[in-house]
């Protein structure tokens, strides 16, 4: 009988990988033209959890607001201005009008800082930064709060909630400082986030979703979150169509910067077909989750301008989740 289970050998930390790209600088990221183009857009969720500040998102809270919700019998302490005198004249009893209270929506950004977003040219992190800043700008512009949770192997808490347009520069500063960390631990990061018991809101995951634990673990982690979800998948054209990559032929060593040992493969038509099938399963799993959960899923091509792709996402001006 084995008394002590041998601890699995801890994988050696990946050697420092040279040639990783730098993130966009604050000056490159905080482009007024880019931000001004986002002004017409808005993010809406069906109903935010009450308990927040007065803002623009619909909630279950009753109180001050513009939208009439119901009548209730008057009790001492109610605002006399809310008494409906027409009802009193008809029924002889005092009723006060209650309104639906609009509050703010907390938007939590989970931004991937793993090395896989930094190894290519141009790196996917640039598109991830721009997409995050753009969505944060939309949220702040509609008086919602923004939380920033970068992750790699583990989840970090940059800030839980900031609001007000003035904080957009703070978000941009944070994003500009996001250099490459280690591997992708999205499933673990999601579990960590779920354990934080944050006020319900919108979680936006910006990542390539290439987690070593597999897309199934990622989906399980997403299912645990009690928030509305928007998944921003940073892709490249050759993810789905590897023949478009000029170097994917013959004997090659593939590395994503996150593992010490690169993967040695010989590109053959058979392997190419198997990869395409694996990638199809990967994207199908994400799409299926988004469909069943009612989450948003958007693919941002890292080789194309982010603003154009977001414009297509927002369509008539609002994304409703």
């Amino acid at each position, binding site marked *: 009988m084995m008394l002590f289970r041998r601890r699995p050998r801890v994988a050696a930390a990946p050697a420092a990988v040279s040639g990783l790209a730098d993130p966009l600088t604050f000056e490159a990221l905080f482009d007024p033209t880019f931000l001004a183009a986002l002004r017409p857009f808005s993010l809406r969720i069906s109903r935010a959890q009450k308990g927040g500040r007065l803002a623009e998102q619909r909630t279950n809270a009753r109180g001050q607001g513009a939208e009439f919700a119901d009548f209730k019998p008057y009790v001492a302490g109610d605002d006399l201005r809310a008494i409906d005198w027409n009802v009193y004249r008809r029924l002889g009893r005092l009723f006060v009008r209650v309104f639906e209270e609009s509050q703010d929506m907390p938007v939590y950004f989970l931004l991937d800082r793993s090395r896989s977003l930094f190894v290519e040219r141009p790196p996917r992190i640039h598109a991830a930064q721009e997409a995050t800043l753009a969505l944060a700008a939309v949220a702040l512009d509609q008086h919602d709060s923004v939380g920033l949770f970068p992750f790699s192997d583990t989840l970090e808490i940059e800030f839980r909630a900031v609001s007000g347009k003035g904080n957009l520069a703070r978000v941009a500063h944070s994003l500009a400082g996001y250099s490459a960390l280690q591997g992708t631990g999205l499933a673990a990061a999601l579990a960590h986030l779920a354990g934080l018991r944050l006020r319900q809101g919108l979680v936006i995951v910006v990542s390539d979703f290439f987690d070593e634990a597999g897309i199934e673990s990622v989906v399980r982690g997403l299912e645990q979150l009690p928030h509305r979800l928007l998944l921003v998948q940073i892709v490249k054209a050759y993810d789905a169509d590897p023949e478009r990559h000029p170097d994917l032929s013959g*004997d*090659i060593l593939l*590395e*994503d910067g996150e593992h010490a040992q690169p*993967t040695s*493969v010989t590109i053959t*038509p058979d392997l190419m077909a*198997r990869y395409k099938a*694996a990638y199809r399963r990967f994207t199908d799993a994400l799409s299926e989750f988004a469909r069943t959960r009612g989450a948003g899923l958007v693919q941002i091509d890292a080789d194309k301008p982010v603003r154009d792709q977001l414009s297509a996402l927002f369509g008539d001006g609002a994304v409703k989740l």
Partner: protein
Amino acid sequence: MSFLSLPLWAVIAGAVCLAALLFGLQVLKARQKHVRIAAAGLWAQAARVTPLRVFRQRFQRWLAYLLILAIGLLLWAAGARPEITPGRDAVDHIFYLDASAGLTGRDDLAQARRALMADVRNTDPARRTVYLDGPVAAPLLQPGENPALLSRRLDGVRARLAPSSFAHAVANQELTGASASGRPTVVHYYGAWSGARDVTSTAGQRLVYGYLARPTLDNRGVVALGASPAASGDAGRADILVEAIGADGRPVPTDALRFSRDGRDVVVDILARPDGKLIVRDAVADGGLFAVRLARSDAFPADDQASLRLPDRRPVRVALSSGAPAAVARAVRLNPAFAVTAPKDAQVVVRRAGERFGEDRPALVVTQAGEQSAFVFTYGADEAEPDLSAALASLGISAVETQTLARTTRREVSAETRPGQQRGVAVWSALFDERGGFPAASEFPVFVSRTLSWLADTPPWIPYAQAGTDLTDQSDLYGLAADRRIADRALNGDLFLDQAGEARIGDLRVAVSLTDRTLTLDAARAVPADVIVTPVQGPTVDLLFILLVVIAGLLLLLEWRLQQRGAMA
């Protein structure tokens, strides 16, 4: 086993180098390039789905290397042209390719060449010698030489429009080679049967036929073409004899012939003789090219046409100075071969020494006795110094009564040659003295005619030019000086015309024709039943070469298939 293109050591060294080169390339190929890609995990997952078997993985590269090496070595070996060396032979073999006119029909030469190559490959290299037909048999492959050389040397061989020289070569023992050892000899003949008809096997030399040209049963051909002075007496014209016969030796009808001058078809005045020969009458003798051909060609084209460059009998333009001797002027005016013109139009001038008359033209100059030798020949800058006695003979001076001349002038009569810008003849005036008797002699017009013709460098009278015979120059018959170009190049007075076509003798162009009656008739005759062609021993194609290339191609196909299936590194 031996190799045709390379010696054995070079083949082995090349194979080793090839193996090393391919190994190096394989090592270089095994150096994988690094590709950074975010989806590397998915690739690894795809590669793990159906991993290669360990054994195959371990030896995959070696198998790939061995396959490539096999293909490379097969191609290398095929390029080196391996052949199975025939066994030792007790007799010597002489192969004779009679690429004369008999092989001009259809693809006879190609077939003869194929049979020759196959037979040579299957013969002991130390005992074989290959000759090519020609005026003198030319060795194509010496004993021990590589047959690949023969193939290359045969590349430029074309059938020669001339009669066969095979019988002549055998008779003169030109075909020696390895047979000089005294061993029995087998002579393999590749050509037309008529070329070997006069050759018979002897005790030490057996004749076998490797290939014989097929007969052209309906062959017709031009068998005679020649020119003679016109019977009409017109000095500027010539009559041309034409004879064309069919396979039965009968004359070909006139309407089956076409005539041309300088490449343009012409209609000629023809007189048919009772013997079937044709006379084309009064053709202008201007040095043009006259050709006759069959209106409908046949499968043996060598004798289907013949051409002749006509003599140039246009009058020589002569200018006579006022001081020219009266006897010379009279001889010139009476001779229709000369036309008296002004000095600027003249080809030749006649003047006295010191006269300023046509000084830039070849001249017959009359000098005073004592000034110089009696006869002075000046030759042009581009000519060799003429032989003095030959020059005197060709101008008819030998007939001059030199003793009478010496007595009259009281001087020693001598002759000399001098170099100059152009031709010239200087003669003492005493020779033309009416009292001396020479102007009245019958040789005098001949002397004047030949001298002026020599000075004008008049083309010779060549009545016909037949391939395989000596050139015939009949200038002497028609009052012309012997042509210097022919004289310079003739060997013992003979100038051999080796094949039909245009022959150049210095700047003199001669149209040589086959016009061989025997050849024309033989081309139509079938090979006698007792003449047996030895079938080729062994394959006529290089089977080993083809086999190696085919195997290499199949292996290449296999490699491509394995690559497609992803089973090759």
